[in-house]
């Protein structure tokens, strides 16, 4: 669901652009290495994120997982009809801190802090798609205190509130038309909204019918990020338009729905050493029909998004070679919520396939070091955004996009 935020906050932008950022799930080194499965995996404190219900089944009384990844994302764009080329390279550092503490036999408390939306897109300023986006920087931290209650040997439930704290900074040009420019510098607007707080919740259940099989289900609620009183600042407005009320620096409001996400999955301990896991995510993206930005001067900007609910299919495996080494691998297929004709350069996101791997080196009984990597493959795609208009004329923007994401990560796991 982390993807959600990035996708929605972008939208904040207010332009005819749609939301963006990469929907890259990096919420734990161990689980990422397993294709970011985890709703039915009890490996470490990472379960506080994937399914809080599972915290109660952790062996150790105290569990701590801390991790950070380097996210290297690159998208190239080209349009051979007009000989356009552009690219964006961005680096993010998603991190996570998970801790659980078993208070008694049936009750475990935990805290999860993670950054589901830390990516950014930065095209060359004033590139051909600048009327949709020049750059966007999106940051959000989620704080999630949770509890887990075990009911008998086979069943648990858990959950907790989520406090989402985020901000977004977005810049785009006002038009493709050079009329709106000063000395060759196109007029642009920066929308900035920081300190947005919103609440949501997560809840899940876990059921272990046998020693080897776990079933999990988790629901993360929709979170509406309500940007209130953000700053819209206009730059390079030509003098003839300088008194136009639309181009005055002003406040804006916008609502950003982060859709609900439902996950079911299972894990199966094939042997003592070998485990398989499967997750299915369904993100309720259809809530995101349009982004509406209301400006202080009474005007508003309505930007169709038309996202559709989308699914992610994940598979992961873990092999515990010995006391020192555990190896992991995974794969997932991630459907894009973006529909044809709504493909904008803030979220150059088509369907993708993630390849993951990693290992843990256990220094001793308490402390382990986790490594992970993710390679996200996107097919080359021809698509466009057909809902931007200038002078009452729809002005499509499109071409061929090709993205890739690579993210190595490192973390520690500590427990006793």
């Amino acid at each position: 669901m982390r993807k959600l935020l990035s996708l929605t906050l972008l939208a904040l932008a207010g332009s005819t652009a749609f939301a963006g950022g990469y929907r890259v799930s990096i919420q734990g080194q161990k689980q990422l290495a397993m294709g970011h499965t985890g709703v039915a995996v009890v490996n470490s404190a990472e379960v506080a994120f994937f399914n809080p219900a599972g915290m109660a089944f952790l062996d150790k009384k105290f569990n701590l997982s801390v991790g950070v990844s380097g996210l290297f994302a690159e998208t190239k764009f080209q349009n051979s009809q007009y000989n356009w080329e552009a690219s964006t390279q961005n680096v993010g550092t998603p991190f996570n801190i998970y801790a659980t503490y078993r208070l008694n036999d049936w009750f475990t408390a935990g805290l999860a802090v993670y950054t589901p939306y830390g990516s950014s897109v930065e095209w060359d300023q004033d590139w051909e798609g600048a009327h949709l986006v020049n750059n966007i920087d999106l940051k959000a931290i989620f704080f999630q205190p949770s509890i887990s209650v075990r009911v008998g040997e086979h069943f648990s439930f858990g959950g907790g509130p989520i406090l989402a704290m985020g901000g977004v900074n977005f810049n785009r040009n006002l038009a493709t038309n050079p009329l709106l420019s000063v000395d060759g510098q196109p007029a642009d607007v920066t929308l900035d909204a920081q300190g947005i707080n919103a609440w949501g919740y997560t809840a899940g259940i876990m059921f272990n019918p046998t020693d080897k099989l776990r079933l999990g289900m988790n629901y993360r609620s929709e979170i509406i990020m309500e940007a209130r009183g953000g700053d819209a600042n206009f730059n390079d407005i030509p003098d003839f338009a300088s008194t136009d009320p639309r181009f005055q620096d002003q406040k804006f409001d916008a609502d950003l729905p982060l859709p609900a996400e439902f996950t079911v999955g299972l894990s199966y301990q094939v042997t003592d050493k070998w485990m398989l896991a499967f997750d299915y995510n369904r993100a309720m993206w259809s809530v995101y029909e349009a982004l509406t930005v209301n400006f202080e001067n009474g005007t508003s900007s309505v930007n169709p998004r038309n996202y559709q609910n989308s699914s992610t299919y994940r598979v992961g495996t873990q092999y515990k070679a010995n006391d020192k080494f555990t190896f992991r691998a995974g794969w997932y297929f991630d459907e894009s919520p973006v529909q044809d004709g709504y493909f904008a350069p803030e979220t150059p996101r088509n369907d993708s396939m993630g390849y993951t791997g990693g290992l843990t080196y256990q220094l001793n009984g308490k402390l382990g070091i986790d490594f992970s990597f993710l390679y996200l493959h996107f097919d080359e795609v021809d698509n466009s955004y057909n809902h931007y208009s200038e002078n009452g004329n729809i002005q499509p923007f499109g071409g061929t996009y090709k993205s890739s994401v690579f993210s190595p990560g490192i973390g520690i796991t500590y427990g006793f």
Partner: protein
Amino acid sequence: MKNKFIYLAILAAGFASCEPEFENEVNAEYSAGDADFSSYVAIGNSLTAGYMDGTVSRVSQSYSYPSLLARQFALVGGGEFTQPSYADDVNNLGGLMLGGIPIGGTRLVIDASQGRPEPIAGTSTIEVSNPQATAYNNMGVPGAKSFHLLSNTYGDVAGVMPGYANPYFVRHAITASSTVLGDAMTKNPTFFTNWIGANDVLSYATGGGALPDNPLTPSVDESLLPTPAADHNATGNLDPSTYGGNDITNANVYASVYSTIINTLTMNGAKGVVATVPSVTSIPYFTTVPYNPLSPTALGGSANINALNAQLYGPLNQIFSAFGEPNRVKLLSATAANPILIYDADAADRSAQITAVLTPTLGAPTATAFGMVFGKARQATRDDLVVLRASGVIGTPNASSPSTLININGVSYPMANKWVLTTTEQLKVSNATASYNSSIRSIAASKGLAVADMNAIMNQLVGALRVETGQVYTANYFSGAATEGVVLFSLDGVHPNARGYAVITNEIIKVINRHYNANLPLHNPSYFPGINIVGSN
């Protein structure tokens, strides 16, 4: 252990370097086809020079269609493309100076504080008498007619005021006796575009079929004289050196000149594109001002209208009706828009009859004067084209009127010939254009050259031209912010703006791609400027 880290680092490096790559890079398919763009030369007039908003300026030139073409040629082996230097146009004002005296206005802009087009404030710094003596790849010379390209006095600074030389060509002619075509050939073109001929009819049309004002006779404005400009298809005059500035070039002269130009350009095997002469009636210069702008309010209400009908329109109607022309001048309407009163050089002359009818009431001298004024008058019809600049004349007092009773242009005094292109005049223009275009096509066919049908393109603009992006453009004259983004013409109403030149460039690229099996990318017109607007001027 240590090895593990090393392996991991190598793995990480491997993935980090694996950046996205396209199956086919954007330029993989671009090709010059059968053409060789290593030396591209453009021949033409203002439309080739990058003229817009009534002038060539440093920036407007950068949007000339040949320079936009050359940008794409550069992707497939095109050589350097040079244009006449406008480095002296420091402030991008355009205009022209000759010996420090302005002979051409600065570029037109919309003054937002006034809401109207105005020449941008400032003095031109483009001096005609600073010769560059250089041939350029862009040999578009604003104002050039077909036969001018072969004239060996066209670059002589001494000929600017007498009118046999062209100030724009004077600036860069290699010598005073250079010809435009000769200078162009020094670039050894391997590929050319030739778009010449519009001015062979256009100056007649924009001049409303009247003579041009001769700068050597400042006391007389020849354009207001009754004598019309000549159509040499009617006179049969085959000597262009004797043509007046607004005359229509004889079609045989045009064909002969055009042959010479093409034979010269192709003598070393160059390929190229020739463009047809656009239909002038589609340009905003002729389609913006209505034939009937006189609303009852503009005429001062029913009292004024009644007085005009009683004293002027009624008598004229009676006289013309008596000679079988009841519709030539009709009574003014107090409820609907009225047509302007115009001077039609081709109308039947009723001055004697008018004088005769009016003499008993007005006396012979006044009646004679009235007869002179209204003898060839009529009301405009929807088929007449009123030129853009007439909008500043209609309804204003006419200084040469013999009486203040009949001195309001278009209302009580006929608009001079130069303000209106009548149907008769239009026919001369369209016939000549058709002849020229037929010559262009046959000469191009004989050399296997590609033809860009600018006539067809411009005609599409009258309705609406839908380009590749789905954007619809029109030939509407600028009418405010709401239409700015769809306007392809500049404020002079004759020449495209930068966006319009991009559209023209695309049409030529399509022709090249088709005819020469090339694959060149287009320009996206949305990214080109349209009308220039300034806050105040």
